[in-house]
């Protein structure tokens, strides 16, 4: 009985001092700060606070696309990989969708499914180069980052913008259903699936093992190539899904859709406590990271000018960067301190982990 209590207490403490709890605290703190200091005018010209339901939904709607990309990147980064191409793929998918619907005259649902498929194929290109040919993910996705955006620009000649999508499709990005913005349901669905995949399946375990040691995973008989392929193809499909939501929200598809989103998504993932060196991280953390950044971005615009210096957008960038560095330093602190304390004097043969 007592041992049970003890273990329970231990778990409880472990639960409390988890990194995610810290992130949740930051989220609550910044939300409360905006709640007390933030004001804005609503559609009818009335001065309202930050706490309105409309604003919460606004934050949710604007964070869905980057949130989806962050969810797509979490499994990839768990394998110590990276996918810089998701933002470009969002642009390419949006253009492909617009072209299929507008130019080829496909029905919307068919064009949407074809876009998801195209996203999977594009992710497959990354997967083949990374998982089969064993090229470094950074270089491969840097190449496809250029390639996807370039193909999108070539398809539209840098000018064509697809608009006039049917109302039924725009519903997906602009209306509410069952009490939430429509895209939030898709986002939550994907979040739940990715969470299940990463935390409750063999595949998720394999992702982590690959992140710690690809050789170890190989010798342990795990399907390294197949799991890596799954991670990158899934990133492609989710990026295409984000493109559909993006198109539905703005009502237009353009080649420059999602420019720079990949770095925001990576920031959210890393802020969420996922190690960029692989093996460590949670989907919950990623979701909290997305929320912290989204609330900060939206909330700073509601503060009086004096507090937020000049521009909300730039302040948000600055604060996000500072928060990220703080988080990284915090994560590195215990290791650094223990290394300081327990450095052996004759450590000539102490193997240190291979730097990634």
């Amino acid at each position, binding site marked *: 009985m007592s041992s049970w209590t003890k273990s329970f207490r231990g778990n409880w403490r472990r639960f409390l001092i988890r990194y995610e709890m810290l992130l949740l605290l930051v989220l609550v703190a910044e939300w409360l700060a905006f709640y007390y200091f933030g004001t804005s005018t609503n559609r009818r010209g009335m001065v309202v606070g930050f706490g309105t339901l409309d604003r919460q939904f606004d934050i949710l709607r604007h964070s869905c696309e980057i949130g989806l990309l962050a969810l797509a990147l979490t499994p990839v980064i768990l*394998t*110590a*990989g990276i996918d*810089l191409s998701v933002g470009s793929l969002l642009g390419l998918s949006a253009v492909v969708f617009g072209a299929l619907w507008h130019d080829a005259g496909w029905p919307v649902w068919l064009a949407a499914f074809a876009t998801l498929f195209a996203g999977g194929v594009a992710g497959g290109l990354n997967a083949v*180069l*990374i*998982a089969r*040919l*064993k*090229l*470094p*993910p*950074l*270089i*491969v996705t*840097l*190449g*496809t*980052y*250029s*390639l*996807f*955006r*370039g*193909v999108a*620009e*070539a398809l*539209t*000649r*840098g000018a064509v913008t697809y608009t006039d999508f049917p109302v039924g499709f725009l519903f997906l990005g602009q209306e509410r259903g069952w009490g939430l913005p429509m895209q939030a349901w898709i986002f939550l669905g994907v979040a739940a699936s990715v969470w299940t995949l990463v935390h409750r399946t063999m595949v998720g375990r394999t992702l982590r093992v*690959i992140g710690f040691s*690809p*050789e170890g*995973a*190989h010798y342990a008989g795990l399907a*390294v190539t197949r799991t*890596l392929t799954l991670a990158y193809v899934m990133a492609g499909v989710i990026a295409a899904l984000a493109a559909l939501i993006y198109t539905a929200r703005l009502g237009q598809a353009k080649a420059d859709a999602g420019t*720079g989103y990949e*770095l925001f998504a990576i*920031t959210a993932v890393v802020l969420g406590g996922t190690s960029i060196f*692989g093996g460590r991280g949670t989907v919950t953390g990623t979701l909290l990271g997305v929320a912290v950044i989204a609330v900060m971005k939206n909330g700073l615009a509601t503060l009086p000018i004096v507090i937020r*210096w*000049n*521009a909300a957008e*730039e*302040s948000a*960038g*600055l*604060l*996000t*960067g*500072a928060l*990220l*560095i703080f988080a990284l330093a915090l994560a590195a602190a215990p290791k650094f301190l223990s290394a300081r304390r327990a450095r052996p004097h004759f450590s*000539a043969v102490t*193997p*240190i982990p*291979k*730097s*990634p």
Partner: protein
Amino acid sequence: MVALRQGLNLVQQGEFVNLPERVQWFGFSQSAGQWIVLLGALGLLATLAAGTRWLTAGRYVYAVGSDAEAARLAGIRPRMVTFGVFALMGALAGFAAVLNIVQSPQVQPLAGSGLELKVIAAVVVGGVAISGGRGSLWGAFVGLLLLVCISPALIHLHVEAYWEKAIQGAIILIAATAEVMRIRTRNARPPVRANA
């Protein structure tokens, strides 16, 4: 870091600052100024290339990039080298900023945004290993020339300029694949690695 740099925009917040006249082209005429910018950059490149090639400090960088633990056992302090390299990076970015500023009477806080990925691409195409320890500055320079020359070449060939980024991406992928193939054929037994 990238996000933090965005915060620099705060300083000016999109406003252009008019610099004193003497700053532009270092106070020389435009034609002379262009030469100074070009020669300054090339001179720095040659100096650094020679430095990484022949100076002990330069070889330390290769040693740490190749195998930090082996370098440490050989008496190099990897942390110091890493620190020095990043500090040098900051100094070089500052130098690039100066060369950029003198070309126009205005300072734009957004100057250079998006350049980081292009630069990495050029370095990789130039044969510098992303896993560290291999490559040279002249290689990176050639890679840069290759990527920069796509756009004029397209115009010359009467191909639509919108293909530039796509071709850039294709070159990166081909260069990376070729590099790995070259190493594979040289080493009989390829290492089992998912990520580098």
